[in-house]
Structure formats: C-alpha cells, structure tokens
C-alpha cells in the first residue's frame, strides 16, 4: 500500500490535488481512498489531504502516520510535526524557491524542491500551483505516469486546460533528473 499526505494551506488546492492524484491512480486500475479533514479550516490555515493507493480493496479508516511520500504546498509548513507523519525514508516534495539543502527533514527523508510558483507563472497559471506540483510529485514518485496525471488534469480543470497541462508537463520534465540523484 502506498500512503501519501498532501500538506497545504486552505485555498491552495491540496484537497483538489489529492482528488486528482486519486483519479489518476484509479484510471490505472488501482484502488484508492482519499480524504481530508477540516472544520474550522479557513483560507490560509493548514489543511492535509490523505491518499491510499493499493492493488486490493482499501478498508482501514484512520489517519496516515507513516506516509511513503509527502507533498508540501508551502515550505513555511515544514516542521517536525508534519514531517513526523512521513516515514523515515519518505520522499518529501516541497513547493519552494529555496535550495533543497536549506529545507528541514527528519532522518533519512529525501527532500525534492519544485519551484511551483515560477512554473505556474511561466505557464500563465498565476498563483495556481497544484498542476505544476502534481507533475513534479509524480515524476519524483515514479508513479502514476505523466500521461495519467496530465489526462486527469485536462479532464478535470474547470478553466485553462492547456495551461494546466503545460505546467504539469514542465514540472514533470524538470524533476526526472532530480529523482535520479536521490
């Protein structure tokens, strides 16, 4: 079972990203379960989205405590509490313009930086970073494939379909060499 946590601030699209990633895995015939918990959450407050992916039906209904991978929409959220939800050797993909070696990590966690803001702007997406981050995350994770996530984004984007897909593809392309390094 692959367990993923997506961490962001309310309004950044972390929940949407979780749903899109689930859809991409589902389109490949995988069982998925994704859920967010919120209540008092407002624009700007921390929110998490959890995703399980498996080749057999998923039954447990509890939080993810040892994620294999974490996608973080905002480097200011990276602290020991959130990083502690990911496993010792987890992949941590962070939306940031900072160098990777300046970012916090725990134990053997592998940090990969994606400059989602710059990629989004270059593809006329303004401040909407989730398509770029999904592209980068899938490249670093090695699954689901570029075509699965790009197609899911194209089907789901309410506007700027081509721009969303272009941002996803650009980030995916940038991240492959990084992945070989880690």
């Amino acid at each position, binding site marked *: 079972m692959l367990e993923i946590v997506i961490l962001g601030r309310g309004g950044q699209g972390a929940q949407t990203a979780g749903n899109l990633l689930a859809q991409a895995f589902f389109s490949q015939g995988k069982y998925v379960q994704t859920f967010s*918990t919120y*209540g008092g959450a407002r624009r700007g407050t921390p929110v998490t989205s959890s995703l399980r992916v498996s080749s057999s*039906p998923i039954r447990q209904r509890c939080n993810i405590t040892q994620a294999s991978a974490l996608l973080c929409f905002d480097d200011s959220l990276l602290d020991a509490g959130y990083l502690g939800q990911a496993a010792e050797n987890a992949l941590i993909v962070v939306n940031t313009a900072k160098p990777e070696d300046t970012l916090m990590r725990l134990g053997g966690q592998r940090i990969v930086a994606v400059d989602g803001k710059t990629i989004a702007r270059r593809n006329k997406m303004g401040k909407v970073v989730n398509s770029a981050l999904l592209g980068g995350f899938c490249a670093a994770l090695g699954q689901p494939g570029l075509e699965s996530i790009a197609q899911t984004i194209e089907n789901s984007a309410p506007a700027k379909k081509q721009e969303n897909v272009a941002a996803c593809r650009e980030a995916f392309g940038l991240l492959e060499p990084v992945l070989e390094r880690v």
Partner: protein
Amino acid sequence: MNAPAFADDMQLLNGNHAVAWGVRLAGPDVAPLYPITPQTPILEKLIEFQSSGAFQAELLTPESEHSAMAAAIAASATGARVFTATSSQGLLLMHELLHFASGARTPIVMFNVNRTPASPWGFWPDQIDSLSQRDTGWVQLYSENPQDSLDSVIQAFRIAEATNLPVMINHDAFYVSHSVEPVSLPSPEAVTDFLPRQARDIQLGDGSGRSLGAPIDQASWNRTRRDLDEAMKTVEQFAIDASQVWEKQTGRASAPLEFYRYHDAEIVFVTMGSMCGTAREAIDRLRTSGIKAGLLKVRLFRPLPNEALRDALRGAQHAIVLDRNYSPGTGGVLHQELRSVLFGTQDPPRLHGYLAGVGGLSVPEERLEALATEVRDTVPAANSLWLE
C-alpha cells in the same frame, strides 16, 4: 460490507456524494434539507442533480432542521416518498419531531453524518448524536463505507415503506463522508425494480378531513406504542429480505449483522460504522500471527437484533466492544446494549468495552491488533474503558 471489488460501473465518489446518488436513484418526491458541516455535500450534490434535470424531487430549504423535519412529516403523511439529511446539532434540533415522525408512522428516510455535538464546537466523527436518539422510534442503520451508504439509502426506503417507520442511516464524518473511493452505481432499472411505487395509507390531503396527531385518550395512546412495537419487531426480517434481494441484483449483501472471519473466532470485535474497516485489517494481521480473531458488525442498531446477537456471540471467548461515542455516566452505548443482550445467557463471552476514537481520534489497526492480545488475560471491567 467489505470494501467492494473492482467493477466497470465504478466511479470515484466521496461518501456524501454516494448518498446523493442513492437518493437520486431512489427518487423521492420531496426533500426538505438544511445544510450543516459535514452533511452539506449531500445537499449540494442533490441541487446539482436537480438543476441538471436528473433529480425531480421538490427540494425545500426551510429556515432550520426543526422545520425541515416538520415539512418531511407533513409531506410523508400525504403519501409522498421523502428524504432529508442532517448531522449533529441539526439532528439534535430535530429531536422533538423525531418522536413525532415515528408516532405518526411516516416512512421518512434520513441520512445523518455522525459528528461531535457542542459544547465545545467540533466537526469530528463521533456517533453520540444519533445514538442519543435511540429512543425516538427511528430505525437506525450504521454504514461502514461509501458503497455501504449508497446501498443502505436504497434499502432504507424499502424497509421504511414496508413498515411505515422512519429510517435513519448514519455514517462517520470525514472517514466516510469525505472519503473519495471507488463506488459501484446500480442501474436506475435495478433500483426501480427493488423499490416499486406502492399505494400508501394517506393520512393528510385526501380530502376526507382527517387530522394527524390529534389528542387521544390514554388507552389509545398506549395502543399506538403497541402498534409501534409490532412494527419494530418486523424490521429485522424486512432488512434481511432487502439485503438478500439487493445481493441478487448487485452481488452486494448488507445484512443487519455482518461477519468477517467469524466462524471459528475466539476473540471478536463488535463495532459499528467506519471502525469496522480498520478492525478487518487488524483481524487479518491477528490471523497471520495465529490468533483467531473476527468481526461482528452491527449495521442495524434499532431495532437491535437481540436474538441474532445472542446466537452470534455464543462460542466466542472474548468480545471487544469498540464505541466511538461516550454516554456520560454510562460509557459506551453499544457496550451497554450488549451487556443487556447477554445478561442471563449461558456461558457468555467476556465483554470488554472500550471508548475508541471518541471525538474523532484516529484508531489505527495496530492499536486494535495490540488490544486483542491485551484482553486475553484480562478480567473485563464493569465500565467501558478509555482506549489509550
């Protein structure tokens, strides 16, 4: 039911949208609804269905849940098929009219998303909102996952209309209501076959000038409760029938009580709602290490299947009751109910009550796995214990 196997007719839906699909397929005539977190996606999806022309019910949006239930009772008394949905504070605000609905024998189907009641304010999965309505005369079902919720909505209309009793289905906030996963959608034809439109006793609006709920004398009021009691006694069999017919049509059973790796189990978990899924994982781990564990899922909580529970628990050495609720002064509601069921039986299992996940705390399968080992050498406490 267990999580469903992959099928071509599957879509990714969250639990609340699965409920809305069940409602759309069941085709109620009237749906009075008031929004509340975390129920609101049910209302939003039904409005989306209605505006696209796929859902024909008259949607009423009154000023409170109390008024929504009043509208539901009145509409149901005219013979209409009626659906409503709520959660926590909304359900509690309806409380007065929940008694009214069952007394008036209106077969309303209501979906409740289990959420912590105030105070303090919270949004988290906890079943005390609906369990504290256990004496209001509503049939209560508890759902484990989005597929179970969809199937239960459709079955609930059949049970309600067969018994003239209102039915409340419950699923846990977030772990089910907002969990997006593959859900199989039955065909509209299958649902129409399963839920034929039948002429009902019309209590209002037939032009005869009868009144509904008018004052009556003591003996007549007493008679209404005896009638209610008779109707309640038929629910379990109607629920079994509904499950069997549904299984023939869809391949998915959802019986009043469900069992997982149970026949030779020595340590059994007894619980309701989303905790059942986590318990299944824990049981598989325990079986791998040679411990004979099993699950008894209580899907029908009102009326409680007393005899079936006694039969099921005969032979188990330990029963671990997991209550995601806390009744102050008592402990876990299901624990209390099972003590009552088992009282006076020969050789009952040792009954260990745990308050597990109260307030929406996450209970991982590893904790349940450890718990099964812990109870083996333990004399059960009289009260429910807080799971640490």
